[in-house]
Structure formats: structure tokens, C-alpha cells
């Protein structure tokens, strides 16, 4: 498949629909699996990796997983294309930066992604828009069952599915939601929320955060343990906490509107103004301002901007996307090109999803 075709589309998970999509950007389930007859990837020889990649690629192609899949040979991609796939959440950074034979099979909606030779031989991911953990879980079960018909996953009755890192052993499942929590950040309640999440074994991470800093008020909540509970219980563990977080964020948004409306309106309008007029702008500032504008749209403070447009811009203003969108033009810097892209988008002339902004 040609990656250029992806450049002009957005993944299903970005369409900004689905239950509670004002706060829950996406729901994701992934399973870690390994073939029993090969060493784990970090111990594998070049030949082992090539054999693992071939066996998985061929066998996956031979079973119906409910979706038509395209296979991308990540090992032979240019660096920019690998980064592009990372920005779209189709592969991990580790997979992009790894060595040797590896690939990813994805469906056209970009809901299903099968990474071959990541930390484990196979990482299956299903990504849905909005709060739809159970939908993602039901879908991934089908994919997992079908692949299992064609390969022997490493399994032990006591330990469950055997993984390269003991932190994933057992179910091999990671269940996560990506939440947009700007009001909890503004009202400085976010740290308290994180502390409570840790107490119940949930991890918090940022979206596109470099190192320790989350960017743009986007946070991913996921389970930490994978052994001793069933997959359904682990899905439910994350599913149970999301309504609570949604409620906190909604209450914080109500508070902002009620108590500090002028202030919030000013913040949102300024963010929108900068995005529409800046001549040079960093990735980090863009994420932060898009987050504010997204909240403004949801609070009814900005009209005429679609949620899916904001979601799409969050991805399209990332470095590899910008570079692919601008083609071979290497003359301008990323920040200048990003500002130019944003201005064109908000002027209504350059939105692939037909900007309705004014």
C-alpha cells in the first residue's frame, strides 16, 4: 500500500464521534503474542527475525480477520514514513526505531493494526473513536482467534500467553483510553486525579509527550497488570473508571464556564487567534492551543469548527505529517510550515476534511 494514500485521509479513531467523544478521543485494546518456536525478538538472530516475520505475514494473510489488511514492510521504509506511522498510532516508536525484518498490517479504516517483530512477535491493536472499549475488545477477540487458528502462540497453562517482558505475561492485554482533560488541567486538579488512578493500578501517559511531559492536555489511562484477572475484568477495570473521569472533567468545565467565563472565553479566543495568524509555531504550542480551541468548541465558545477538524489537525501538524503534506519543499522550517498549514486550514482553503472554520 502507498502511504501517500493515508496522508489524505484520517483514521477512524479521529473522526470525533462515538460515545462521550467530547472527552474520550479514542479507546484502544492491544494483545501481545509470540510464536512458540522462535526466540523473543530481543534474543532473535537476523535469520530468526526474518523467519518470524515471514511466518506471521503469510499465516495472517491466509486467515480472515474480519477486515481486509494491507501489509507495510516497516524494515524497508524511510525514516519519515516510519515516523508518519508512529504519529498515526499505527506503530510504536520502538517498532519504528528497531532493526531487522518487521512490518505492520493495517485495515483501511486504521482501526486494526498488527505489528510484527515489535518487542513481542505480534502486537495486535484495535483502536476505536470515542468511548468504545467493549467494541474494541470484541473486535480484537475475532482477530486473535483467527490468527490463533494458523499459528501456535507461546502459552503455558499457569503463566498464560508468554511475553518478552514479564509485565505483559498472562493475558498480554493493554486496555487504554485517550482522554482530553483541559478543564482538570486548568483547575489544577489533574495531579490529584492521577494519584487516585495509581492507587487502583492504572497508568497515566501523555499523547506525543517527549519524555515526561504530556502535550495538549491529552492523557492515556491504561491497566498495568495483565496476570491473574480475565481479559473481561481488565477491560472493565478501565471502563469503570472512565465515567468517573468524564464526570470530573465535565464538572470542571461547568465550573470554568460558570465562574470564569470571561477568562475562559478570552483564553480560547486567543488560542484560536494565534492558530489562525501565527507565522511560525512549534509542535508543542500547536498542541496546547488546539487543546484550548477544542475545549472552546465543546463549550460553545467557538462556532463553525468541527471536532473532527481539530482532531485531524492534532495529527496533521506533527512533523512527519507536515513533511509529507508539503512534499519535497525543504526550504522552510517545520515551524514556519506548520503555521502556514494552520492559516490555510482556518482560511478554509486547505482542509482535506473541508474546513468549515472561518
Amino acid at each position: 500500500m502507498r502511504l501517500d494514500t493515508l496522508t489524505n485521509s484520517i483514521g477512524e479513531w479521529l473522526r470525533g464521534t462515538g460515545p462521550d467523544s467530547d472527552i474520550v478521543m479514542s479507546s484502544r485494546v492491544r494483545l501481545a503474542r509470540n510464536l512458540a518456536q522462535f526466540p523473543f525478538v530481543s534474543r532473535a538472530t537476523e535469520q530468526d527475525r526474518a523467519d518470524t516475520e515471514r511466518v506471521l505475514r503469510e499465516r495472517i494473510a491466509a486467515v480472515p480477520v474480519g477486515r481486509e489488511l494491507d501489509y507495510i514492510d516497516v524494515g524497508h521504509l524511510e525514516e519519515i514514513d516510519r515516523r508518519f506511522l508512529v504519529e498515526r498510532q499505527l506503530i510504536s516508536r520502538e517498532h519504528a526505531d528497531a532493526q531487522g525484518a518487521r512490518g505492520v498490517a493495517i485495515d483501511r479504516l486504521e482501526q486494526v493494526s498488527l505489528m510484527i517483530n515489535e518487542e513481542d512477535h505480534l502486537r495486535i491493536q484495535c483502536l476505536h473513536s470515542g468511548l468504545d472499549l467493549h467494541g474494541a475488545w470484541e473486535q480484537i477477540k475475532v482477530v486473535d482467534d483467527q490468527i490463533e487458528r494458523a499459528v501456535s502462540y507461546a502459552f503455558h497453562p499457569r503463566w498464560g500467553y508468554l511475553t518478552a517482558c514479564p509485565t505483559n505475561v498472562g493475558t498480554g492485554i493493554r486496555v487504554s483510553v485517550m482522554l482530553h482533560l483541559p478543564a482538570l488541567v486548568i483547575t489544577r486538579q489533574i495531579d490529584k486525579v492521577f494519584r487516585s488512578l495509581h492507587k487502583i493500578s492504572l497508568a497515566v501517559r501523555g499523547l506525543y509527550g517527549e519524555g515526561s511531559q504530556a502535550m495538549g492536555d491529552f492523557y492515556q489511562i491504561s491497566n498495568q497488570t495483565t496476570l491473574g484477572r480475565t481479559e473481561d475484568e481488565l477491560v472493565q477495570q478501565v471502563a469503570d473508571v472512565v465515567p468517573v473521569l468524564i464526570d470530573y472533567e465535565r464538572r470542571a468545565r461547568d465550573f470554568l464556564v460558570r465562574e470564569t467565563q470571561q477568562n475562559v472565553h478570552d483564553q480560547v479566543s486567543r488560542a484560536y487567534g494565534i492558530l489562525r495568524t501565527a507565522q511560525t509555531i512549534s509542535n508543542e504550542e500547536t498542541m496546547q492551543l488546539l487543546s484550548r480551541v477544542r475545549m472552546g468548541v465543546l463549550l460553545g465558545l467557538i462556532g463553525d469548527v468541527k471536532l473532527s477538524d481539530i482532531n485531524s489537525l492534532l495529527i496533521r501538524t506533527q512533523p512527519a505529517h507536515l513533511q509529507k503534506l508539503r512534499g519535497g519543499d525543504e526550504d522552510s522550517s517545520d515551524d514556519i510550515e506548520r503555521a502556514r498549514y494552520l492559516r490555510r486550514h482556518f482560511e478554509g482553503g486547505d482542509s482535506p476534511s473541508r474546513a468549515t472554520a472561518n
Partner: protein
Amino acid sequence: MIQSSSPGTVCAGERTGRTCGDAMKCQQCDNPAVFHITELEAGNVREVHLCEEHARVYLNQSEGGDGGDPGEPGAVEGKGQKGGGLSGPLGVGQTAEDLAVLDKRCCDMCGITFFEFRNQGRLGCPHDYLQFEKELDPLIANIHGATEHTGRRPSRPVPEGVDAGSGTDGLTAIIGLRRGMKEAISREDYESAKESRDAIRGIEDAWTPPAKAGEENA
């Protein structure tokens, strides 16, 4: 043993900057303890005192973790979140001699030593879970708060004559045979190499899914 972070606890490794007092020794060997690490566990504070070498191993293990998932790039809360439990097998309380012996033990299939695992935080092959079961047991209990899988199981039956209790370990034996075959070839012992090759084929044939399994619904 260090009973480090139980699941769900915040495990924030932190160097206090204290210099070693006159009497404090590393909890793992007789060298002076120069690192004093404070672990926060569900409101409890626990201190670990280690020499430079063991501290490096300890902190390295604490930073092990999930590996990559798409869109899971940066941990907001940073180190210790997932890998905190990996400090389990360090075995404070065991003598340096015990650890030295343990570190040299290696997997019959992939050849990884326990020392290599401790340093990398990644196992070498599925057989490691059996080979190092005794050592992994407390570690996994630390990470997950459990040592028994209760989730989904493969629906495909194991081949006839294979003990279901060993899971897919019979198939994983191929990894060791393949290694043996290579070694035999390198020392020009072609008879052994051929035996290994035949054994590999036998296992592969027994474990190969019925030829049409994947194609019935294709």
C-alpha cells in the same frame, strides 16, 4: 527480598544524595552502600541501600517496562510505574555468591543467562518462564499481584502424546535444537546436525495446524 512496589503503588526511585555513613553496607554485598533509594509504596516509605554496581542493576530493572505500544510514548509519571516490580529478583537478602551462581544460569533453549535478563528486563524465549520459574515467581507476584493466568486459552488442542500441562514448551524445544544444529555444523559434526534437523522436522510436523485450518473460511 526486596518486596518492592506491589501492583498499583507508586514506586518513585529517588536518590537522596546522602553519602554513605560509616557502617552502612550494600544490602547485597559487602561493599559500602553509596546509593540510598527511597521507594514510595501506597503511602509507605521503604529504603534500599546499595553499592554503585548493584544500584545500577536495581535502577535499570526499575526502568524496565512495557515496551512499545502505538501512541504510548511518554510516561507522565515516569519510571517505576510498570517496571518497579522488576526489582524483585535482585534478591536482597541473598548473598553475593548466591547471586553470582544464579546469574550464570542459562536457558537450555535460547542460552540467555539470568544476568542478561536482569540487565535487559527482557526474556530470551518462552522456555525461560520454566527455566527460571523459581526466580520469576516472586518477581511476577510483585508486578501483577498474582501468579496464575485466569484469562483466555488457546482453543487448539496440543498434539497427541504431548503433555498439555507444559503448554507449547514442546514446540519451543525447537529453539534449542536449532542452536544445537548450528553448533554441530560449526564443528563439522554433520551426524549430530542431521539428528537435530530430523528432530526439528518431527516437532514441526506434530505441531503444524491441520493444513486447511486457516483456509476453510478464507
